[in-house]
């Protein structure tokens, strides 16, 4: 999208002949469209979002949009897959960089909370709008939730003495989702980091029991965040410039 003064957004490629390979250009356009989906859903619901909004925000032509995606739903699902893939990968990385089960859960929660608070558009797209984006989106959400639950469940089985009931992981992940979802819908995203100790408490409780879960909560409160996460914006979505030129 050209602004009235003729300037371009940072992420746009220069117009005309630039000698960049075609695949690079296509990838850049695709990334911009996906990022635009997250930006648009942070202001409008999925139902309100239009292809016109997406192309205006991405700075691509309607024709370019339709070269990449069939329709709004296609673009949304691609953006969702990429964002949730990144979220899962980051949480899994944080989780597996520790040995103790309690530390793993704590690192995973910290990463999840850090990523959703760093980028509300990304968070709304992944956690709120997915609910209203049709049956395919719901199935993907279901698959993502199952992956989070499986991560917790596998570790609980291998790291704890007694194997837990298999629906514990699902209820724990569902409960966490509900807490984050309701904060997002009520516009209270900023309060989430303060809830980390209590989230860790609640997540560990079914596995470790009340006494040890409280010990771990106190430890989280004492020690503060265990993850030093650089440049969260970059983790949360494809690289983009923070401001326009």
């Amino acid at each position, binding site marked *: 999208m050209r602004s009235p003064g003729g300037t371009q957004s940072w992420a746009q490629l220069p117009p005309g002949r630039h000698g960049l390979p075609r695949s690079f250009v296509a990838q850049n356009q695709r990334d911009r469209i996906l990022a635009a989906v997250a930006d648009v859903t942070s202001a409008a619901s999925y139902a309100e979002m239009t292809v016109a909004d997406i192309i205006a925000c991405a700075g691509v032509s309607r024709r370019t949009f339709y070269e990449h995606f069939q329709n709004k739903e296609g673009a949304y699902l691609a953006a969702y897959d990429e964002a949730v893939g990144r979220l899962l990968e980051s949480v899994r990385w944080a989780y597996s960089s520790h040995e103790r089960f309690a530390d793993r859960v704590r690192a995973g929660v910290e990463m999840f909370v850090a990523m959703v608070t760093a980028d509300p558009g990304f968070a709304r797209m992944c956690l709120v709008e997915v609910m*209203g984006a*049709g*049956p395919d989106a719901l199935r993907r959400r*279901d698959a993502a939730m199952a992956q989070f639950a499986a991560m917790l469940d596998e570790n609980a089985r291998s790291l704890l003495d007694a194997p837990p009931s298999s629906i514990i992981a699902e*209820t724990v992940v569902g*409960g966490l989702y509900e807490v984050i979802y309701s904060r997002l*819908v009520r516009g209270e995203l900023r309060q989430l980091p303060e809830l980390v100790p209590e989230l860790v408490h609640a997540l560990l409780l079914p596995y470790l*029991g*009340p006494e040890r879960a409280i010990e771990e909560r106190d430890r989280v409160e004492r020690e503060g965040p265990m993850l030093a996460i650089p440049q969260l914006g970059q983790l949360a979505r494809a690289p983009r410039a923070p401001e326009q030129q």
Partner: protein
Amino acid sequence: MRTINIPFSSCQGLALQNLETRVAAIALTRYCARMDGRQRAPHQLPPGRHGLSHAYVAQNQRERIMSAVVQVARETGYSGLTIREVITAAGVSRRTFYELFSDKDSVFLAAYDHVVGRLAHDVRESTTRGGDWPQQISLGLATFLGRLASDPAVAHLCVVEILAAGPAALSRRSAAMDAFRPFLEPGCREAPDGVEPPPLAVELAIGGVYEVVYTYVLEDRTSELPRLHADLLQIALLPFLGLRRAAAEAARARRRVPV
């Protein structure tokens, strides 16, 4: 004697609650006996003069329309739901529809409020039959799972389709989730020594149960929900009662509630 069959399990019983509607039902039954032989759908009112009050007719039509929304939404999802299909299934005219509802959104939300209100009412009523708090939760949860299992279309509307029906529907859903909080909140006072329920316990328990129910409904396994009763009960009670007592309550539930 013929009975009026409103094919909307959550409405049944409601229509006969007050005197006026009972009188109307008697008038209707007599009228139906006279009209025997004419073909009407069992839930439709007879045509022509029937001596039923205007309010009764409107209420009957309203319930039929909401019932139709539940059935149609099960097939088409919220996005595919059309007023044409709703009025066909309800056996009312388009004009009657628009006398009672302004559009698809309003009828969908009315149907949601109705079935959720009924569900919450039944859950509340069953909790009052429990002696102590854990038993109240056990009975409430059993009713909740049982009602959903017995009516998959209602379960689909309340649990899945409401999420696809726009921002107003999402805030209705949040309000409905909050309506279950008062059942769990007393649990914070039940905690034995050494157990300190997390401040998020109520929210997490409701969200956790919802997630499991949601998965079952989405996968068309709604009828299996009652089997989860003891497991879900244990998870819901755990933050409040600790591991040992929650397990004991789950064992008690397994003995009491046949699966």
